C-alpha cells in the first residue's frame, strides 16, 4: 500500500492531461470528501476515534476534514497553491487509505469498512488528480514579512497551536490513531512549506525573537495545567525535559563544534552519581550533604574535569579518535560504577545496586516532593521537577545561543568545516575543541545531578551505551546545531515509543535505521541550521563529476530497501 502511494506521488504528472476538467474534478472531490468525513467509516464499534458513528467527525475523519479545509483554501490560484493542494489532498488519500486498511485488518476483512471511508478515499483521489492536473510551481514563494503586528500575532498563534496540538496528540490513546495524527500534521506542514508559510514563520520568529521565546516559555509554563491532572504524561514530560536539556548540551558538542561524543551519557552519569552521593541518601558513602545547588556545581565540575582528562589527549588527533575514545570512556564509566562496590574496588558506588533512596529536592522551603494545588489543579510532584527543568533548559539554551553567536562559535564552525584551514587562520583548534567538549560535559553533569533526584536512585545500568545513542539520535534527527531541533528530536524520541507500545521492542532498530536514512537524505536534520545545511550539501554536486572513468556510474538508489 505504501508502494501504491509512493507510485501515485511519483507518477502524478500523468494527470496533467485532465487540465481542462480540473475545476469540475476538484468540486466533485471536495464534495465527496466532505460527505465522507461525516459518515461512518467502520461497521463495528470500538475502533479508535469512534469512526463508526455518523455525524461529528473524530479521529482520522477529523484529520481528513482539517486537510480538506486547507485544500479548499487552495482552490483560489496563488503562488505555490497547486503544489500545496496536491500535498494536502495526497495526505487525505494516505490517511483515509491507511485507516481503511487498519479497519480491515482489525475487523477481519474489507467488509467492515463502511461507505464513508471509501467516499473519502475517492474524494481525496479526485482532489489530488485535480491539483496534479494543473501547472505546479517548482519554487517556493518568498512571502513578504509584513508588519510587525502580523508577525507577532502569527508567531504567538503558531506557538499556541503547537501547545494545543501537543495536548491533543498526547490525549490520543490508540497507537494507530496517533500515527494518523502525526501523518496529518506532517502533510499539513509539507503543504504549508510549499506555500512558503513555514519559511515565513521561521523568518518572522527570528525577527521577533523576544516574543517567540516569551510565548514558548509561557506555553511550557501552561502545559501542566493544559494537561489537567494527567499525571502519566506529566511524568513523561518531566523525563523529556531532562532529556532535552541534555540533548541541547550534546548539541553544543556535536552540532556546533562537530565533535562526535559517543559517551555523553557517562558525563550525565558522573553528575547523577555525584548528585546522589551528596544528596544525603542513606545509601550514600559520602557524609557531606551540601545544598542542591552546590551539589549541582560539584557534579558539573566533576564531569567537566573528566571531560578534559579524556579530551586533552584525544582532541589533538583527528575527530574519529574522539568517537572511539568517548565510546570507551562510556564503557569504563559503567564498568567502574559496577565495580566500585568494596569487593572489586573501593566502596563508593555500591556496585550494581547503585544508590537508591535519593530524597526529593528541597531548595530552601521549597520541597519538590509535595503535590501542589494551584488554581484548583492538582499538580503531582514531578511538575515541580518539570519547572526546575525549564529553568535548566533555559540556562543551557542561553549558553548555546550566546556561544553560537560569539567569536568562539564562529571558530567552532571553522574547525568543523576544515580544521587545517581554521588552524592556518590562527584558530587555536585544540583549545577550542577542548572547550566545547568540557562545556558539553559540564552541562551534562549539571543535568545529571537533577536526574538523580527525579528518578530517586542511580545505578550503573541507567548509563549504558544505548542511552548515549538515544541522545545522539535526538540531536541528529532533530537537527544538528539548532535548539528547536534538539527539543523536537528529544520529544520525538521519548514520546513516540511511549505512544506506540508495539514499537517499543523495535525502538533501537528503528533509531539505527533512522540514523542511516537521515544521513543519506537529510543529514542536517528535521529543523535545519542554515549554515549546517549548506555545509552538508555543498560537496555532493561538485564531486559528482569526479567519478573515475573506469568506475561504473550507478544511480544512487539506496532507499529501495
Amino acid at each position, binding site marked *: 500500500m505504501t508502494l501504491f502511494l509512493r507510485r501515485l506521488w511519483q507518477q502524478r504528472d500523468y494527470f496533467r492531461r485532465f487540465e481542462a476538467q480540473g475545476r469540475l474534478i476538484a468540486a466533485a472531490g471536495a464534495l465527496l470528501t466532505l460527505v465522507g468525513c461525516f459518515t461512518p467509516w467502520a461497521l463495528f464499534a470500538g475502533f479508535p476515534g469512534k469512526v463508526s458513528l455518523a455525524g461529528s467527525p473524530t479521529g482520522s475523519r477529523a484529520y481528513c476534514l482539517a486537510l480538506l479545509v486547507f485544500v479548499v483554501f487552495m482552490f483560489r490560484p496563488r503562488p505555490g497553491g497547486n503544489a500545496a493542494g496536491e500535498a494536502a489532498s495526497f495526505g487525505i488519500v494516505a490517511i483515509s487509505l491507511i485507516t481503511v486498511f487498519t479497519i480491515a485488518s482489525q475487523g477481519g476483512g474489507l467488509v467492515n469498512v463502511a461507505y464513508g471511508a471509501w467516499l473519502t478515499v475517492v474524494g481525496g483521489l479526485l482532489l489530488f488528480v485535480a491539483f496534479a492536473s494543473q501547472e505546479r510551481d517548482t519554487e517556493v514563494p518568498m512571502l513578504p514579512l509584513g508588519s510587525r503586528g502580523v508577525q507577532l500575532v502569527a508567531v504567538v498563534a503558531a506557538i499556541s497551536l503547537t501547545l494545543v496540538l501537543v495536548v491533543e496528540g498526547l490525549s490520543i490513546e490508540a497507537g494507530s490513531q496517533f500515527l494518523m495524527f502525526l501523518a496529518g500534521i506532517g502533510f499539513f506542514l509539507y503543504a504549508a512549506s510549499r506555500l512558503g508559510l513555514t519559511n515565513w514563520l521561521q523568518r518572522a520568529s527570528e525577527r521577533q525573537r523576544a516574543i517567540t521565546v516569551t510565548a514558548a516559555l509561557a506555553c511550557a509554563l501552561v502545559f501542566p495545567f493544559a494537561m489537567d491532572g494527567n499525571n502519566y504524561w506529566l511524568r513523561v514530560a518531566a523525563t523529556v525535559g531532562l532529556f532535552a536539556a541534555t540533548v541541547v548540551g550534546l548539541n553544543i558538542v556535536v552540532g556546533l563544534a562537530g565533535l562526535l561524543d559517543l559517551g555523553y551519557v557517562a558525563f550525565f552519569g558522573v553528575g547523577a552519581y555525584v548528585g546522589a552521593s551528596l544528596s544525603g541518601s542513606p545509601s550514600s558513602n559520602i557524609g557531606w550533604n551540601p545544598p542542591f545547588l552546590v551539589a549541582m556545581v560539584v557534579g558539573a565540575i566533576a564531569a567537566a574535569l573528566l571531560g578534559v582528562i579524556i579530551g586533552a589527549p584525544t582532541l589533538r588527533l583527528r575527530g574519529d*579518535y574522539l568517537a572511539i575514545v568517548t565510546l570507551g570512556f562510556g564503557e569504563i564509566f559503567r564498568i567502574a560504577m559496577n565495580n566500585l562496590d568494596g569487593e572489586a574496588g573501593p566502596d563508593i558506588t555500591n556496585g550494581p545496586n547503585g544508590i537508591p533512596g535519593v530524597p526529593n529536592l528541597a531548595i530552601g522551603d521549597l520541597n519538590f516532593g509535595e503535590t501542589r494545588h494551584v488554581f484548583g489543579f492538582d499538580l503531582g510532584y514531578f511538575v515541580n521537577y518539570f519547572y526546575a527543568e525549564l529553568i535548566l533548559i533555559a540556562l543551557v539554551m542561553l549558553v548555546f545561543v550566546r556561544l553560537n553567536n560569539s567569536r568562539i562559535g564562529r571558530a567552532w564552525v571553522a574547525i568543523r568545516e576544515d580544521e587545517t584551514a581554521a588552524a592556518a587562520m590562527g584558530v587555536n583548534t585544540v583549545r577550542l575543541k577542548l572547550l566545547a567538549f568540557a562545556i558539553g560535559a559540564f552541562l551534562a553533569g549539571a543535568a545529571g545531578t537533577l536526574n538523580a533526584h527525579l528518578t530517586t536512585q542511580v545505578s550503573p545500568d541507567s548509563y549504558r551505551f544505548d542511552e548515549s545513542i538515544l541522545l545522539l539520535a535526538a540531536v541528529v534527527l532533530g537537527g544538528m546545531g539548532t535548539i528547536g531541533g534538539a527539543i523536537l528530536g528529544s520529544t520525538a524520541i521519548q514520546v513516540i515509543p511511549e505512544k506506540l507500545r508495539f514499537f517499543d521492542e523495535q525502538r533501537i532498530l528503528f533509531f539505527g535505521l533512522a540514523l542511516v536514512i537521515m544521513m543519506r537524505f537529510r543529514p542536517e536534520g528535521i529543523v535545519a541550521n542554515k549554515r549546517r545545511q549548506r555545509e552538508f550539501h555543498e560537496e555532493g554536486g561538485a564531486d559528482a563529476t569526479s567519478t573515475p572513468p573506469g568506475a561504473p556510474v550507478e544511480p544512487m538508489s539506496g532507499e529501495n530497501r
Partner: protein
Amino acid sequence: MSTFAQQLVNGVVIGSLYGLIALGYTMVYGIIQLINFAHGEIFMIGAFGGLAVHIYVLPDGTPALVGLVVVLLAAMATSVATALIVERFAYRPLRNAPRLAPLITAIGVSLFLQEFVRLYYFGGGAKSDRAFPQFIGGDPIRIGGVQFDRVSVFIVVIAIVLMVALSAFVRNSKTGKAMQATAQDRDTAQLMGINTDRIIIVAFVLGAALAGVAGVMQGMQAGVIGFRMGFLAGIKAFTAAVLGGIGNIAGAVLGGFVLGMAETMAVAYIPGLFGGGAWKDVWAFILLIVILVFRPQGLLGERVVNRA
C-alpha cells in the same frame, strides 16, 4: 613463572582474535579513513550465520572437521554478504560527504545489525546467548605446567595462517598493490587506472571474511554467542588497530597481540583493589588513551595527526 607463561599463552589466543578483527578496521580505515563501527557487528553476524548453518543445514552425524569447515565458510559468507550490503547502501552514497555523516551512519548500521539479530534471528530472535557447537574437543595439552586448550591452538594457528596469507596478498598480488596505492592517495590511484570503488569493496570483503572466521573462533572459545558480542570485541579490535598504527596491516596484528597480553597480564599482575578480571576492560581502554597521548601514530604507524 608458570603463571606468567600461562597468561602469555592466554594473551596470544585473545590477541589473535583481536588481530583478526582489527585487520578489517585497519584496511577500511587505511583506504577511506572511515572507522567502520559496524565491523564488530559483521564479526557477530558471521558467528550467527555459522550457527544457523550448523543447526539448520548440517545433518546430525556430520564429522566434526567437515562441520567446522562448513561453518567457517558459512560464517565468512554471511559476514561478506552483510558487509557488501552495508557498503553499497550505507557507505557508498556518502563517499564525499563531510566526515561526521559516515561515522553516524556507521553507528546506525551497527545498532541496526545488533537489533536485527536480537529480534529476528531464526527461532524467535537471539535475545539471550546461544550455545555454539564445539568442534574440537579433547583434553588440553600440558607442557611444563602451561596448559594449551586444543581450541586455542587451533585459533592461533588459523589466525596466523590467515594473517600471513593476507599480508602476502596485499604485498604481492596486483589487487593488493592497487589497495596500497589507493590507501596512499585515492585520487592519484584513480588517475593510474585503478578502479578505486572496486578496491574499497575488496577491502570490505577481506575484512569481513576475517571477521567471520574470528566470529566462529570466538564462539568455539566461549561456547556461546550473543548479539552484543560484537560491541566490546569491536572496540577492543579498534584499540588494537590504533595501538599498532591504524592503516598498517602488520600493526593491526601486533596491536592485537599486545592488547591481548596487556589484558591477561593486568588480570594476573595488577595487585589490590583495581586488579582482577572485573577491571581488565578498563585497563585496555586506559592503554588506548595512553598510546594516543604518547604515540598517536601507533607502534608501527606513520604520522597520522592531521592527515586528511
